């Protein structure tokens, strides 16, 4: 059955990845409801190596913990499946991982309900057989097989291959010439937000809320550093972006991974979706403001976008460096 029967876009993929967590929740809830009357007020929830209960929690907290855990895990997997384009191999891994995790978490919590069931008076005598662990792993393996089967039947719909980017004109760069283009770009919005957050954080500290205050100051300082500017450099090594006042974090795309470059005007909210480092299917972007942006098309087919003034010169230099590297940036012209 090497051939997938169906292809799934990201909505369907998200559904398939979230399903095992919802199923686990449903099964857990069904088992819990059925045994609710036979459960002690204090449930045995932790067991020593010999299988005897050595940790307890209230009967009401178990479903809250179990359902929250499953739903949060499901949500994270859902966001992962929705936001990030996957390769067929990555899709298989994602699906199998989701099924295994959902089955394991579900099994463990259900078995806690089952072993406590029938000990209405006291949970002290509850014990968990060591066989539960291999059984939990067995359930996970079964779920893995199910996930693998699904991944074989349903392939991720591949994004239509982007039309080859119209290569921008390139700088006339001689064999004996070396060149570098570098420019700083800042974000007044991020700077202002950072400043406002820092002031609010200090106010919270003064008002006697040190934890919230310090967290806000840290976030504010981070935005302020990010917004105070980044230095973008194009040279024989490729494309690099670093904060203007710190040597890290450093974002670097090697020249061999770039197939062509161009400049275009972008609107922050409409085209990219906000400030900062943004990852979307087929595009990652370092966005500080609306306006001129340098767009590098990568060998994977996706593009990397960075907002910076005079991006046209940067694109022309990148194209020239790519051609000198022995690769044609513009086929046929």
């Amino acid at each position, binding site marked *: 059955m090497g051939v997938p029967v169906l292809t799934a876009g990201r909505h369907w993929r998200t559904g398939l990845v979230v399903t095992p967590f919802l199923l686990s929740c449903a099964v857990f809830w069904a088992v819990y409801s059925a045994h609710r009357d036979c459960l002690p007020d204090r449930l045995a929830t932790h067991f020593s190596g010999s299988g005897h209960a050595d940790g307890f929690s209230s009967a009401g907290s178990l479903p809250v913990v179990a359902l929250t855990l499953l739903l949060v895990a499901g949500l994270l997997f859902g966001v992962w499946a929705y936001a990030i384009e996957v390769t067929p191999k990555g899709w298989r891994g994602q699906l199998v991982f989701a099924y295994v995790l959902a089955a394991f978490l579900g099994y463990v919590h259900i078995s806690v309900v089952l072993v406590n069931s029938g000990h209405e008076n006291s949970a002290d005598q509850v014990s968990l057989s060591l066989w539960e662990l291999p059984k939990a792993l067995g359930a996970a393996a079964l779920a893995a097989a199910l996930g693998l089967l699904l991944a074989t039947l349903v392939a991720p719909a591949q994004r239509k291959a982007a039309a080859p980017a119209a290569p921008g004109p390139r700088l006339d*760069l001689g064999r004996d*010439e*070396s*060149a*570098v*283009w570098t420019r*700083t770009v800042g974000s007044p919005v991020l700077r202002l937000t950072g400043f406002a957050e820092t002031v609010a954080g200090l106010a919270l500290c003064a008002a006697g809320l040190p934890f919230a205050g310090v967290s806000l100051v840290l976030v504010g300082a981070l935005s302020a550093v990010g917004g105070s500017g980044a230095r973008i450099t194009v040279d*024989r090594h490729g494309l690099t972006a670093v904060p*203007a006042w710190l040597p890290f974090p450093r974002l670097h795309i090697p020249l061999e991974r770039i197939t062509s470059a161009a400049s275009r005007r972008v609107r922050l909210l409409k085209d990219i979706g906000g400030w900062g480092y943004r990852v979307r299917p087929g595009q990652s972007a370092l966005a500080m403001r609306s306006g001129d942006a340098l767009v590098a098309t990568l060998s994977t087919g996706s593009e990397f976008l960075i907002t910076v003034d005079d991006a046209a010169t940067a694109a022309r230099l990148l194209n020239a460096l790519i051609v000198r590297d022995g690769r044609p940036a513009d086929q046929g012209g």
Partner: protein
Amino acid sequence: MLVRLDTTSPVPLGDQIAACVRGAIAEGSVRPGERLPAARALARSLGVNVHTVLRGYQRLREEGLIELRRGRGAVVTTEDTGPARARLLAGAARLVSEARSFGLGDEEILDLVRTGLSGG
């Protein structure tokens, strides 16, 4: 700011770097108060010795276009006249190179400028 170096040119590499930075200040793509890239980073990008870049920066400092401070690196001078001064210096450099390519010696170039001054 675009920095280009031609290794076959008779112009020293440090002077070529200075000319590019001067041009960037003149046209405003590097603003007053802005920090220039660290000499080490620029040297790595261009594949030259860090002292070559520092020679270029030193020359710009002598021209009053940038300030070199320990720990802060090279910063474009915040004086309002900076860009105009850079344009003037770039013009002078152009005059010299054009006159030289014309076959004029140093004295003859100075005479040329003196004639221009007496005429104005």
